[in-house]
Protein backbone atom coordinates (compact mmCIF):
# COMPACT_ATOMS: atom_id res chain seq x y z
CA UNK A 1 0.00 0.00 0.00
CA UNK A 2 0.93 3.66 0.21
CA UNK A 3 4.30 5.22 0.39
CA UNK A 4 5.88 6.12 3.70
CA UNK A 5 7.44 9.56 3.68
CA UNK A 6 7.70 10.09 7.42
CA UNK A 7 8.41 6.68 8.85
CA UNK A 8 10.39 5.25 5.93
CA UNK A 9 13.58 5.15 8.01
CA UNK A 10 12.09 4.41 11.36
CA UNK A 11 13.60 0.94 11.49
CA UNK A 12 17.17 2.01 10.72
CA UNK A 13 19.19 1.12 13.81
CA UNK A 14 20.45 4.19 15.63
CA UNK A 15 18.42 6.61 13.50
CA UNK A 16 17.90 8.75 16.58
CA UNK A 17 21.53 9.78 16.29
CA UNK A 18 22.53 12.70 14.10
CA UNK A 19 25.27 10.80 12.28
CA UNK A 20 23.08 7.86 11.32
CA UNK A 21 20.21 10.14 10.37
CA UNK A 22 22.54 12.18 8.21
CA UNK A 23 23.95 9.07 6.52
CA UNK A 24 20.44 8.10 5.56
CA UNK A 25 19.71 11.32 3.79
CA UNK A 26 18.94 13.43 6.83
CA UNK A 27 19.18 17.22 6.76
CA UNK A 28 19.29 17.18 2.95
CA UNK A 29 16.07 19.22 2.93
CA UNK A 30 17.74 21.90 5.04
CA UNK A 31 20.80 21.83 2.78
CA UNK A 32 18.52 22.30 -0.18
CA UNK A 33 16.37 25.05 1.33
CA UNK A 34 19.21 27.11 2.74
CA UNK A 35 21.36 26.55 -0.32
CA UNK A 36 18.90 27.05 -3.14
CA UNK A 37 15.63 28.46 -1.89
CA UNK A 38 14.32 31.70 -0.46
CA UNK A 39 12.03 31.57 2.57
CA UNK A 40 9.13 32.49 0.29
CA UNK A 41 9.92 29.56 -1.96
CA UNK A 42 9.89 27.17 0.98
CA UNK A 43 6.48 28.47 1.97
CA UNK A 44 5.34 28.15 -1.63
CA UNK A 45 6.24 24.45 -1.63
CA UNK A 46 4.22 23.96 1.55
CA UNK A 47 1.23 25.67 -0.05
CA UNK A 48 1.60 23.48 -3.14
CA UNK A 49 1.81 20.36 -1.00
CA UNK A 50 -1.73 20.91 0.24
CA UNK A 51 -0.56 19.89 3.72
CA UNK A 52 -3.23 20.30 6.37
CA UNK A 53 -2.62 20.57 10.09
CA UNK A 54 -2.22 17.18 11.75
CA UNK A 55 -3.11 18.42 15.24
CA UNK A 56 -6.81 17.89 14.77
CA UNK A 57 -8.42 20.76 12.91
CA UNK A 58 -6.92 20.04 9.49
CA UNK A 59 -6.35 23.68 8.66
CA UNK A 60 -4.14 24.20 5.56
CA UNK A 61 -0.63 24.83 6.85
CA UNK A 62 0.55 27.06 4.00
CA UNK A 63 -2.48 29.28 4.48
CA UNK A 64 -1.91 29.49 8.21
CA UNK A 65 1.66 30.57 7.58
CA UNK A 66 0.50 33.25 5.18
CA UNK A 67 -1.53 34.86 7.97
CA UNK A 68 1.59 35.51 10.05
CA UNK A 69 1.97 39.22 10.65
CA UNK A 70 5.16 40.04 8.79
CA UNK A 71 4.76 43.79 9.12
CA UNK A 72 5.27 43.81 12.86
CA UNK A 73 8.76 44.65 14.03
CA UNK A 74 8.42 42.28 16.98
CA UNK A 75 10.20 38.92 16.94
CA UNK A 76 8.23 36.02 15.49
CA UNK A 77 7.90 32.65 17.11
CA UNK A 78 7.29 29.12 15.96
CA UNK A 79 5.81 26.85 18.59
CA UNK A 80 5.68 23.13 18.02
CA UNK A 81 2.65 21.57 19.67
CA UNK A 82 3.83 18.32 21.25
CA UNK A 83 1.24 18.28 23.99
CA UNK A 84 -0.41 15.18 22.53
CA UNK A 85 -3.01 14.33 25.17
CA UNK A 86 -6.09 13.48 23.15
CA UNK A 87 -7.19 10.00 24.22
CA UNK A 88 -6.33 7.51 21.51
CA UNK A 89 -3.51 9.63 20.11
CA UNK A 90 0.15 8.68 20.45
CA UNK A 91 1.66 9.30 17.04
CA UNK A 92 3.66 12.42 17.90
CA UNK A 93 5.26 10.57 20.76
CA UNK A 94 6.26 7.76 18.42
CA UNK A 95 7.67 10.19 15.92
CA UNK A 96 9.68 12.15 18.47
CA UNK A 97 10.96 9.05 20.17
CA UNK A 98 12.18 7.39 17.00
CA UNK A 99 12.88 10.22 14.59
CA UNK A 100 13.68 13.33 16.63
CA UNK A 101 15.85 14.72 13.84
CA UNK A 102 13.02 14.55 11.35
CA UNK A 103 11.14 16.97 13.57
CA UNK A 104 14.17 19.19 14.18
CA UNK A 105 14.74 19.36 10.46
CA UNK A 106 11.12 20.36 9.92
CA UNK A 107 11.46 23.04 12.59
CA UNK A 108 14.52 24.50 10.89
CA UNK A 109 12.79 24.58 7.52
CA UNK A 110 9.63 26.11 8.92
CA UNK A 111 11.53 28.71 10.94
CA UNK A 112 13.48 29.64 7.84
CA UNK A 113 10.27 30.06 5.86
CA UNK A 114 8.62 32.11 8.59
CA UNK A 115 11.59 34.26 9.54
CA UNK A 116 11.64 32.85 13.04
CA UNK A 117 14.71 32.97 15.27
CA UNK A 118 13.35 31.20 18.32
CA UNK A 119 11.31 28.05 18.33
CA UNK A 120 9.83 26.26 21.34
CA UNK A 121 8.69 22.68 21.45
CA UNK A 122 5.91 22.49 24.03
CA UNK A 123 5.77 18.87 25.11
CA UNK A 124 3.47 17.32 27.65
CA UNK A 125 5.21 16.79 30.98
CA UNK A 126 4.44 13.08 31.08
CA UNK A 127 6.80 12.68 28.13
CA UNK A 128 9.68 13.64 30.37
CA UNK A 129 12.00 11.08 28.77
CA UNK A 130 11.42 12.67 25.39
CA UNK A 131 12.64 16.02 26.66
CA UNK A 132 16.09 14.49 26.99
CA UNK A 133 15.89 12.80 23.59
CA UNK A 134 14.88 16.02 21.87
CA UNK A 135 17.42 18.15 23.72
CA UNK A 136 20.15 15.72 22.72
CA UNK A 137 19.03 15.88 19.10
CA UNK A 138 19.04 19.66 19.22
CA UNK A 139 22.55 19.70 20.71
CA UNK A 140 23.78 17.37 17.99
CA UNK A 141 22.22 19.54 15.31
CA UNK A 142 23.81 22.54 16.94
CA UNK A 143 27.26 20.92 16.94
CA UNK A 144 26.83 20.34 13.24
CA UNK A 145 25.80 23.93 12.63
CA UNK A 146 22.20 23.13 11.71
CA UNK A 147 20.93 25.00 14.74
CA UNK A 148 22.42 28.07 16.40
CA UNK A 149 24.19 31.08 14.93
CA UNK A 150 24.57 31.52 11.17
CA UNK A 151 23.39 28.11 10.14
CA UNK A 152 25.57 26.57 7.39
CA UNK A 153 27.28 29.90 7.04
CA UNK A 154 24.13 31.72 5.96
CA UNK A 155 22.60 34.70 7.73
CA UNK A 156 19.93 32.49 9.22
CA UNK A 157 20.16 31.78 12.97
CA UNK A 158 17.81 29.70 15.07
CA UNK A 159 17.51 28.47 18.65
CA UNK A 160 15.22 25.58 19.53
CA UNK A 161 14.18 24.89 23.12
CA UNK A 162 12.09 22.14 24.64
CA UNK A 163 9.50 23.30 27.16
CA UNK A 164 7.63 20.75 29.27
CA UNK A 165 4.01 21.07 30.31
CA UNK A 166 2.85 19.53 33.54
CA UNK A 167 -0.33 17.56 33.02
CA UNK A 168 -3.19 19.41 31.34
CA UNK A 169 -4.87 18.27 28.14
CA UNK A 170 -6.16 21.79 27.54
CA UNK A 171 -2.61 23.00 26.94
CA UNK A 172 -2.83 21.32 23.55
CA UNK A 173 -5.25 24.05 22.51
CA UNK A 174 -2.92 26.52 20.88
CA UNK A 175 -3.68 29.61 22.93
CA UNK A 176 -3.79 27.70 26.22
CA UNK A 177 -0.42 26.34 25.17
CA UNK A 178 0.93 29.85 24.72
CA UNK A 179 -0.37 30.87 28.15
CA UNK A 180 1.26 27.81 29.64
CA UNK A 181 4.50 28.59 27.84
CA UNK A 182 4.38 32.00 29.48
CA UNK A 183 4.28 30.27 32.86
CA UNK A 184 0.58 30.69 33.52
CA UNK A 185 -2.48 28.54 33.96
CA UNK A 186 -3.53 26.92 30.73
CA UNK A 187 -6.55 29.09 30.07
CA UNK A 188 -7.31 29.41 26.36
CA UNK A 189 -7.32 32.98 25.15
CA UNK A 190 -10.27 34.74 23.69
CA UNK A 191 -9.88 35.08 19.95
CA UNK A 192 -9.44 37.43 18.15
CA UNK A 193 -6.63 38.39 18.34
CA UNK A 194 -5.21 35.27 16.74
CA UNK A 195 -1.69 34.03 17.45
CA UNK A 196 -0.57 35.04 13.96
CA UNK A 197 -0.86 38.61 15.23
CA UNK A 198 -0.63 38.33 18.99
CA UNK A 199 0.73 35.02 20.10
CA UNK A 200 3.59 34.19 22.40
CA UNK A 201 4.59 37.32 24.39
CA UNK A 202 2.10 39.22 22.22
CA UNK A 203 4.32 38.60 19.19
CA UNK A 204 3.33 37.06 15.85
CA UNK A 205 3.35 33.30 16.35
CA UNK A 206 2.68 30.13 14.41
CA UNK A 207 1.63 27.02 16.32
CA UNK A 208 1.79 23.71 14.50
CA UNK A 209 1.57 20.09 15.44
CA UNK A 210 4.63 17.81 15.62
CA UNK A 211 3.55 15.70 12.65
CA UNK A 212 2.71 18.77 10.58
CA UNK A 213 6.16 20.23 11.16
CA UNK A 214 7.97 16.93 10.63
CA UNK A 215 6.15 16.57 7.31
CA UNK A 216 7.75 19.78 6.05
CA UNK A 217 10.99 17.81 5.78
CA UNK A 218 9.84 15.35 3.08
CA UNK A 219 7.81 18.09 1.39
CA UNK A 220 10.92 20.17 0.80
CA UNK A 221 12.84 17.02 -0.06
CA UNK A 222 10.45 15.76 -2.71
CA UNK A 223 8.77 19.03 -3.66
CA UNK A 224 5.28 20.21 -2.84
CA UNK A 225 3.73 18.85 -6.00
CA UNK A 226 5.10 15.37 -5.54
CA UNK A 227 3.73 15.34 -2.01
CA UNK A 228 0.35 16.57 -3.22
CA UNK A 229 0.27 13.69 -5.71
CA UNK A 230 -0.05 11.35 -2.73
CA UNK A 231 -3.37 10.98 -1.01
CA UNK A 232 -6.81 11.77 -2.25
CA UNK A 233 -8.46 15.06 -3.18
CA UNK A 234 -7.87 17.75 -0.63
CA UNK A 235 -6.43 15.21 1.78
CA UNK A 236 -2.96 15.14 0.34
CA UNK A 237 -0.02 13.06 1.44
CA UNK A 238 0.19 10.59 4.24
CA UNK A 239 -1.07 10.60 7.80
CA UNK A 240 0.10 8.94 10.96
CA UNK A 241 -2.68 6.94 12.51
CA UNK A 242 -2.40 5.70 16.07
CA UNK A 243 -4.59 2.68 16.42
CA UNK A 244 -5.71 1.25 19.74
CA UNK A 245 -8.56 -0.53 21.44
CA UNK A 246 -9.75 -4.04 20.73
CA UNK A 247 -7.52 -4.80 17.76
CA UNK A 248 -4.78 -7.32 17.17
CA UNK A 249 -2.03 -4.88 16.32
CA UNK A 250 -2.26 -1.57 18.09
CA UNK A 251 0.40 0.88 17.03
CA UNK A 252 1.36 3.82 14.85
CA UNK A 253 0.93 3.44 11.09
CA UNK A 254 1.66 5.78 8.27
CA UNK A 255 -1.11 5.50 5.74
CA UNK A 256 -1.62 7.22 2.45
CA UNK A 257 -4.73 9.34 2.72
CA UNK A 258 -7.64 7.56 1.12
CA UNK A 259 -7.01 4.12 2.55
CA UNK A 260 -10.37 2.45 3.20
CA UNK A 261 -11.24 2.17 6.89
CA UNK A 262 -12.05 -1.47 6.35
CA UNK A 263 -8.55 -2.21 5.05
CA UNK A 264 -7.04 -0.29 7.91
CA UNK A 265 -8.93 -2.30 10.51
CA UNK A 266 -8.70 -5.74 8.96
CA UNK A 267 -5.50 -5.82 6.93
CA UNK A 268 -2.50 -7.48 8.55
CA UNK A 269 -0.38 -4.58 7.45
CA UNK A 270 -2.27 -2.38 9.90
CA UNK A 271 -4.61 -3.20 12.79
CA UNK A 272 -4.83 -6.88 11.87
CA UNK A 273 -8.51 -7.26 12.68
CA UNK A 274 -10.51 -7.33 15.87
CA UNK A 275 -8.95 -9.08 18.81
CA UNK A 276 -10.07 -12.61 19.69
CA UNK A 277 -12.09 -12.81 16.49
CA UNK A 278 -14.85 -10.66 17.87
CA UNK A 279 -17.15 -8.38 15.95
CA UNK A 280 -16.55 -4.71 15.36
CA UNK A 281 -19.00 -2.56 17.25
CA UNK A 282 -17.87 1.02 16.92
CA UNK A 283 -14.97 3.25 15.98
CA UNK A 284 -13.82 6.65 17.14
CA UNK A 285 -11.66 7.51 14.15
CA UNK A 286 -9.89 10.72 15.15
CA UNK A 287 -9.24 10.88 18.87
CA UNK A 288 -11.81 10.89 21.65
CA UNK A 289 -13.20 14.30 20.71
CA UNK A 290 -14.73 13.27 17.41
CA UNK A 291 -18.12 11.60 17.07
CA UNK A 292 -18.25 7.84 17.55
CA UNK A 293 -19.44 5.76 14.59
CA UNK A 294 -21.23 2.42 14.76
CA UNK A 295 -19.55 -0.35 12.73
CA UNK A 296 -21.67 0.07 9.59
CA UNK A 297 -21.10 3.82 9.40
CA UNK A 298 -17.44 3.40 10.20
CA UNK A 299 -16.91 1.11 7.23
CA UNK A 300 -19.34 2.73 4.82
CA UNK A 301 -20.90 6.13 4.53
CA UNK A 302 -24.65 6.58 4.74
CA UNK A 303 -24.60 6.59 0.94
CA UNK A 304 -23.03 3.14 1.04
CA UNK A 305 -19.67 4.23 -0.27
CA UNK A 306 -16.59 2.82 1.34
CA UNK A 307 -15.45 5.08 4.16
CA UNK A 308 -11.88 6.24 3.59
CA UNK A 309 -9.24 7.62 5.88
CA UNK A 310 -9.34 11.21 4.68
CA UNK A 311 -10.66 14.48 6.03
CA UNK A 312 -13.54 14.53 3.57
CA UNK A 313 -14.65 10.93 3.67
CA UNK A 314 -14.64 10.67 7.44
CA UNK A 315 -16.77 13.77 7.80
CA UNK A 316 -19.12 12.75 5.02
CA UNK A 317 -22.65 12.83 6.34
CA UNK A 318 -21.93 15.56 8.85
CA UNK A 319 -22.79 14.82 12.43
CA UNK A 320 -25.79 12.76 11.42
CA UNK A 321 -23.76 9.89 10.05
CA UNK A 322 -20.14 11.04 9.89
CA UNK A 323 -17.24 11.89 12.13
CA UNK A 324 -13.81 13.49 11.66
CA UNK A 325 -10.21 12.53 10.97
CA UNK A 326 -9.14 14.71 13.89
CA UNK A 327 -5.73 13.78 15.25
CA UNK A 328 -5.77 10.29 13.76
CA UNK A 329 -6.32 8.62 17.11
CA UNK A 330 -8.22 5.53 15.95
CA UNK A 331 -10.05 3.75 18.76
CA UNK A 332 -11.74 0.47 17.98
CA UNK A 333 -14.48 -1.09 20.12
CA UNK A 334 -15.56 -4.70 19.87
CA UNK A 335 -18.99 -6.15 20.53
CA UNK A 336 -18.37 -6.41 24.26
CA UNK A 337 -17.73 -2.73 24.74
CA UNK A 338 -20.34 -0.82 26.69
CA UNK A 339 -21.06 2.46 24.98
CA UNK A 340 -22.62 4.01 28.06
CA UNK A 341 -19.63 3.19 30.20
CA UNK A 342 -17.29 4.44 27.53
CA UNK A 343 -19.21 7.68 27.14
CA UNK A 344 -19.15 8.19 30.88
CA UNK A 345 -15.42 7.47 30.92
CA UNK A 346 -14.65 10.00 28.20
CA UNK A 347 -16.92 12.61 29.76
CA UNK A 348 -15.06 12.17 33.02
CA UNK A 349 -11.93 12.96 31.02
CA UNK A 350 -13.36 16.22 29.69
CA UNK A 351 -14.69 17.18 33.07
CA UNK A 352 -11.26 16.64 34.55
CA UNK A 353 -9.51 18.50 31.75
CA UNK A 354 -11.81 21.50 31.41
CA UNK A 355 -9.81 24.57 32.35
CA UNK A 356 -12.93 25.86 34.04
CA UNK A 357 -12.73 29.29 32.57
CA UNK A 358 -16.07 29.51 30.83
CA UNK A 359 -19.33 28.54 32.41
CA UNK A 360 -20.89 26.21 29.82
CA UNK A 361 -17.89 23.90 29.76
CA UNK A 362 -17.01 24.12 33.46
CA UNK A 363 -20.51 23.37 34.65
CA UNK A 364 -21.76 21.41 31.66
CA UNK A 365 -19.01 18.80 31.59
CA UNK A 366 -19.50 18.19 35.30
CA UNK A 367 -23.22 17.84 34.91
CA UNK A 368 -22.95 15.43 32.00
CA UNK A 369 -20.45 13.34 33.91
CA UNK A 370 -22.72 13.11 36.94
CA UNK A 371 -25.69 12.10 34.82
CA UNK A 372 -23.68 9.50 32.92
CA UNK A 373 -22.24 8.16 36.13
CA UNK A 374 -25.76 7.63 37.41
CA UNK A 375 -26.84 6.00 34.18
CA UNK A 376 -23.89 3.67 34.17
CA UNK A 377 -24.45 2.77 37.79
CA UNK A 378 -28.09 1.88 37.39
CA UNK A 379 -29.58 5.04 38.82
CA UNK A 380 -30.62 6.66 35.58
CA UNK A 381 -34.00 8.17 34.84
CA UNK A 382 -35.69 8.03 31.49
CA UNK A 383 -35.53 11.78 31.18
CA UNK A 384 -31.78 11.72 31.64
CA UNK A 385 -31.10 10.80 28.03
CA UNK A 386 -32.82 13.85 26.65
CA UNK A 387 -31.35 15.91 29.45
CA UNK A 388 -27.89 14.85 28.31
CA UNK A 389 -28.68 15.84 24.76
CA UNK A 390 -29.89 19.20 25.99
CA UNK A 391 -26.85 19.86 28.18
CA UNK A 392 -24.54 18.88 25.34
CA UNK A 393 -26.37 21.31 23.11
CA UNK A 394 -26.05 24.09 25.68
CA UNK A 395 -22.30 23.61 25.70
CA UNK A 396 -21.68 23.12 22.01
CA UNK A 397 -20.66 26.25 20.19
CA UNK A 398 -21.04 28.45 23.25
CA UNK A 399 -17.60 28.13 24.77
CA UNK A 400 -14.29 29.97 24.51
CA UNK A 401 -12.38 27.08 23.02
CA UNK A 402 -13.31 23.86 21.22
CA UNK A 403 -12.91 21.70 24.32
CA UNK A 404 -16.55 22.38 25.01
CA UNK A 405 -17.50 20.96 21.62
CA UNK A 406 -15.07 18.11 22.12
CA UNK A 407 -16.92 17.18 25.29
CA UNK A 408 -20.36 17.57 23.76
CA UNK A 409 -19.84 15.62 20.54
CA UNK A 410 -18.99 12.24 22.02
CA UNK A 411 -22.10 12.37 24.21
CA UNK A 412 -24.39 13.57 21.46
CA UNK A 413 -23.08 11.04 18.95
CA UNK A 414 -23.18 8.12 21.37
CA UNK A 415 -26.84 8.83 22.10
CA UNK A 416 -27.59 9.40 18.43
CA UNK A 417 -26.23 6.02 17.39
CA UNK A 418 -26.72 3.93 20.53
CA UNK A 419 -29.85 5.29 22.18
CA UNK A 420 -31.14 1.77 22.71
CA UNK A 421 -28.15 0.89 24.80
CA UNK A 422 -28.72 3.94 26.98
CA UNK A 423 -32.34 2.93 27.44
CA UNK A 424 -31.30 -0.55 28.48
CA UNK A 425 -29.29 0.98 31.30
CA UNK A 426 -32.41 2.47 32.79
CA UNK A 427 -34.34 -0.06 34.75
Amino acid at each position, binding site marked *: MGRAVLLDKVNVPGIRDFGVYREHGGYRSVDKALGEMTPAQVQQEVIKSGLRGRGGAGFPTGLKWSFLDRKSDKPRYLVCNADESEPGTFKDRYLMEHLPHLLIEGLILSSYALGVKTCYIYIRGEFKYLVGILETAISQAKKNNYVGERILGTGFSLEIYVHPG*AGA*YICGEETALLESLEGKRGNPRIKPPFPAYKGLYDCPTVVNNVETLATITPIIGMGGEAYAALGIGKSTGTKLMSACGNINKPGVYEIEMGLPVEDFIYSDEYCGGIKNGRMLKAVIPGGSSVPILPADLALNTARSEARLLSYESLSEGGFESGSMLGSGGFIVYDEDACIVRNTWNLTRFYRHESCGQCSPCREGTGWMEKILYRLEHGQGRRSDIDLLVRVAKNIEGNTICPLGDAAAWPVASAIRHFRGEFLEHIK
Partner: protein
Amino acid sequence: MEAGSKIDHHLFVRENREVVFSDATLEKVRSLIRRYPEGRQKSALLPILHIAQEEMGGYLSVDTMDYVASLLDIKPVEVYEVATFYSMFYLEKMGKYVLEVCHTGPCSICGGEEVLQHIKEYLHIETGETTPDGMFTLKEVECLGACGSGPSMQVNTEFHDHMTVKQVEKLIDSLRRKSEEEESSKGWAEQFS
Protein backbone atom coordinates in the same frame (compact mmCIF):
# COMPACT_ATOMS: atom_id res chain seq x y z
CA MET B 1 -14.05 10.44 40.21
CA GLU B 2 -17.41 9.67 41.61
CA ALA B 3 -20.19 12.12 41.23
CA GLY B 4 -18.96 13.97 44.26
CA SER B 5 -20.10 17.38 45.32
CA LYS B 6 -17.85 18.14 48.26
CA ILE B 7 -14.63 19.82 47.18
CA ASP B 8 -11.79 18.65 49.38
CA HIS B 9 -9.42 21.60 49.06
CA HIS B 10 -7.94 23.06 52.18
CA LEU B 11 -5.65 25.89 53.12
CA PHE B 12 -1.95 25.19 53.43
CA VAL B 13 0.56 26.57 55.88
CA ARG B 14 4.04 27.95 55.54
CA GLU B 15 6.36 25.72 57.46
CA ASN B 16 9.13 28.30 57.21
CA ARG B 17 11.67 25.62 56.43
CA GLU B 18 14.67 26.85 54.56
CA VAL B 19 14.50 25.85 50.93
CA VAL B 20 17.47 26.33 48.64
CA PHE B 21 18.61 24.61 45.49
CA SER B 22 22.15 23.31 45.21
CA ASP B 23 24.59 25.42 43.23
CA ALA B 24 24.39 23.00 40.32
CA THR B 25 20.61 23.19 40.25
CA LEU B 26 20.70 26.96 40.54
CA GLU B 27 23.00 27.06 37.54
CA LYS B 28 20.50 24.91 35.63
CA VAL B 29 17.67 27.16 36.71
CA ARG B 30 19.52 30.22 35.47
CA SER B 31 20.19 28.60 32.13
CA LEU B 32 16.51 27.67 31.83
CA ILE B 33 15.51 31.27 32.53
CA ARG B 34 17.85 32.42 29.76
CA ARG B 35 15.83 30.44 27.24
CA TYR B 36 13.10 33.03 27.41
CA PRO B 37 13.29 36.71 26.52
CA GLU B 38 14.32 39.32 29.05
CA GLY B 39 11.47 40.08 31.44
CA ARG B 40 9.70 36.81 30.58
CA GLN B 41 11.39 34.76 33.25
CA LYS B 42 8.01 33.52 34.45
CA SER B 43 8.04 31.27 31.39
CA ALA B 44 10.51 29.04 33.20
CA LEU B 45 7.98 28.32 35.95
CA LEU B 46 6.82 24.87 34.82
CA PRO B 47 10.28 23.39 34.20
CA ILE B 48 11.53 24.83 37.47
CA LEU B 49 8.57 23.50 39.41
CA HIS B 50 9.30 20.05 37.98
CA ILE B 51 12.86 20.28 39.23
CA ALA B 52 11.75 21.72 42.56
CA GLN B 53 9.24 18.95 43.13
CA GLU B 54 11.79 16.31 42.34
CA GLU B 55 14.53 17.79 44.51
CA MET B 56 12.46 19.03 47.44
CA GLY B 57 10.81 15.89 48.73
CA GLY B 58 8.59 14.89 45.86
CA TYR B 59 5.95 17.56 46.33
CA LEU B 60 5.56 21.32 46.29
CA SER B 61 5.32 22.69 49.79
CA VAL B 62 4.32 26.30 50.30
CA ASP B 63 7.92 27.03 51.24
CA THR B 64 9.19 25.48 48.02
CA MET B 65 6.72 27.47 45.97
CA ASP B 66 7.58 30.70 47.73
CA TYR B 67 11.22 30.01 47.02
CA VAL B 68 10.50 29.44 43.33
CA ALA B 69 8.48 32.67 43.29
CA SER B 70 11.46 34.53 44.69
CA LEU B 71 13.79 33.02 42.07
CA LEU B 72 11.51 34.19 39.30
CA ASP B 73 10.59 37.48 40.92
CA ILE B 74 6.85 36.80 40.82
CA LYS B 75 4.12 36.81 43.49
CA PRO B 76 3.70 33.62 45.48
CA VAL B 77 0.05 33.39 44.46
CA GLU B 78 1.15 33.22 40.83
CA VAL B 79 2.91 29.99 41.68
CA TYR B 80 -0.02 28.61 43.68
CA GLU B 81 -2.36 29.30 40.77
CA VAL B 82 -0.14 27.36 38.42
CA ALA B 83 0.77 24.52 40.76
CA THR B 84 -2.90 23.79 41.44
CA PHE B 85 -3.78 23.81 37.75
CA TYR B 86 -1.44 21.11 36.51
CA SER B 87 -2.01 17.53 37.52
CA MET B 88 1.66 16.53 37.68
CA PHE B 89 2.32 18.79 40.64
CA TYR B 90 1.63 17.38 44.06
CA LEU B 91 0.75 19.64 46.94
CA GLU B 92 1.26 17.07 49.63
CA LYS B 93 3.82 14.50 50.55
CA MET B 94 3.46 11.40 48.41
CA GLY B 95 4.71 7.86 48.72
CA LYS B 96 8.20 7.02 47.53
CA TYR B 97 6.67 5.61 44.38
CA VAL B 98 3.69 7.33 42.86
CA LEU B 99 1.73 4.88 40.74
CA GLU B 100 -0.17 6.84 38.15
CA VAL B 101 -2.54 4.51 36.43
CA CYS B 102 -4.31 5.54 33.26
CA HIS B 103 -8.08 5.17 33.58
CA THR B 104 -9.13 6.67 30.26
CA GLY B 105 -11.21 4.86 27.63
CA PRO B 106 -8.63 3.10 25.44
CA CYS B 107 -6.70 1.69 28.43
CA SER B 108 -9.93 0.88 30.26
CA ILE B 109 -11.26 -1.34 27.50
CA CYS B 110 -7.98 -3.22 27.27
CA GLY B 111 -7.91 -4.42 30.85
CA GLY B 112 -7.04 -1.19 32.62
CA GLU B 113 -9.97 -1.42 34.99
CA GLU B 114 -8.88 -4.83 36.23
CA VAL B 115 -5.31 -3.67 36.69
CA LEU B 116 -6.43 -0.67 38.69
CA GLN B 117 -8.71 -2.77 40.84
CA HIS B 118 -5.93 -5.25 41.43
CA ILE B 119 -3.49 -2.58 42.57
CA LYS B 120 -6.02 -1.40 45.12
CA GLU B 121 -6.46 -4.88 46.46
CA TYR B 122 -2.80 -5.75 46.36
CA LEU B 123 -1.75 -2.62 48.23
CA HIS B 124 -4.92 -2.29 50.31
CA ILE B 125 -5.33 1.34 49.37
CA GLU B 126 -7.83 3.40 47.44
CA THR B 127 -7.03 5.94 44.79
CA GLY B 128 -5.39 8.97 46.34
CA GLU B 129 -4.07 7.03 49.31
CA THR B 130 -0.55 6.08 50.37
CA THR B 131 0.45 2.76 51.87
CA PRO B 132 1.19 2.99 55.62
CA ASP B 133 4.88 2.31 55.00
CA GLY B 134 5.05 5.37 52.76
CA MET B 135 6.16 3.35 49.77
CA PHE B 136 3.29 3.72 47.31
CA THR B 137 0.72 6.33 46.45
CA LEU B 138 -1.97 5.38 43.97
CA LYS B 139 -3.28 7.95 41.53
CA GLU B 140 -5.66 7.59 38.63
CA VAL B 141 -4.65 9.74 35.71
CA GLU B 142 -6.02 10.55 32.29
CA CYS B 143 -4.62 9.28 28.99
CA LEU B 144 -0.83 9.16 29.06
CA GLY B 145 -0.41 9.06 25.31
CA ALA B 146 0.45 5.39 25.41
CA CYS B 147 -2.93 3.97 24.43
CA GLY B 148 -1.42 1.57 21.90
CA SER B 149 0.52 -0.17 24.61
CA GLY B 150 -2.13 0.01 27.27
CA PRO B 151 -3.04 -0.56 29.96
CA SER B 152 -0.43 2.01 30.75
CA MET B 153 0.90 3.57 33.92
CA GLN B 154 3.77 5.66 35.16
CA VAL B 155 5.86 5.20 38.25
CA ASN B 156 7.45 8.49 39.17
CA THR B 157 7.02 9.65 35.56
CA GLU B 158 8.53 6.50 34.07
CA PHE B 159 6.33 4.56 31.67
CA HIS B 160 5.23 0.98 32.26
CA ASP B 161 3.14 -0.45 29.48
CA HIS B 162 1.10 -3.56 28.68
CA MET B 163 0.12 -3.96 32.30
CA THR B 164 -1.66 -7.06 33.43
CA VAL B 165 -2.64 -8.20 36.89
CA LYS B 166 0.50 -10.35 37.01
CA GLN B 167 2.75 -7.69 35.56
CA VAL B 168 1.68 -5.08 38.02
CA GLU B 169 2.28 -7.39 40.97
CA LYS B 170 5.76 -8.05 39.67
CA LEU B 171 6.37 -4.37 39.22
CA ILE B 172 5.27 -3.52 42.74
CA ASP B 173 7.34 -6.33 44.22
CA SER B 174 10.42 -5.23 42.34
CA LEU B 175 9.95 -1.63 43.45
CA ARG B 176 9.78 -2.82 47.03
CA ARG B 177 13.14 -4.52 46.66
CA LYS B 178 14.76 -1.74 44.72
CA SER B 179 17.45 0.18 46.58
CA GLU B 180 18.39 3.82 46.21
CA GLU B 181 21.41 3.09 44.00
CA GLU B 182 19.26 1.34 41.48
CA GLU B 183 17.22 4.47 40.82
CA SER B 184 18.27 4.88 37.26
CA SER B 185 16.02 7.26 35.43
CA LYS B 186 17.30 10.70 34.64
CA GLY B 187 15.85 13.53 36.68
CA TRP B 188 14.24 16.63 35.27
CA ALA B 189 17.35 18.75 35.58
CA GLU B 190 19.33 16.26 33.52
CA GLN B 191 16.81 16.26 30.70
CA PHE B 192 17.78 19.77 29.68
CA SER B 193 21.10 20.22 27.98
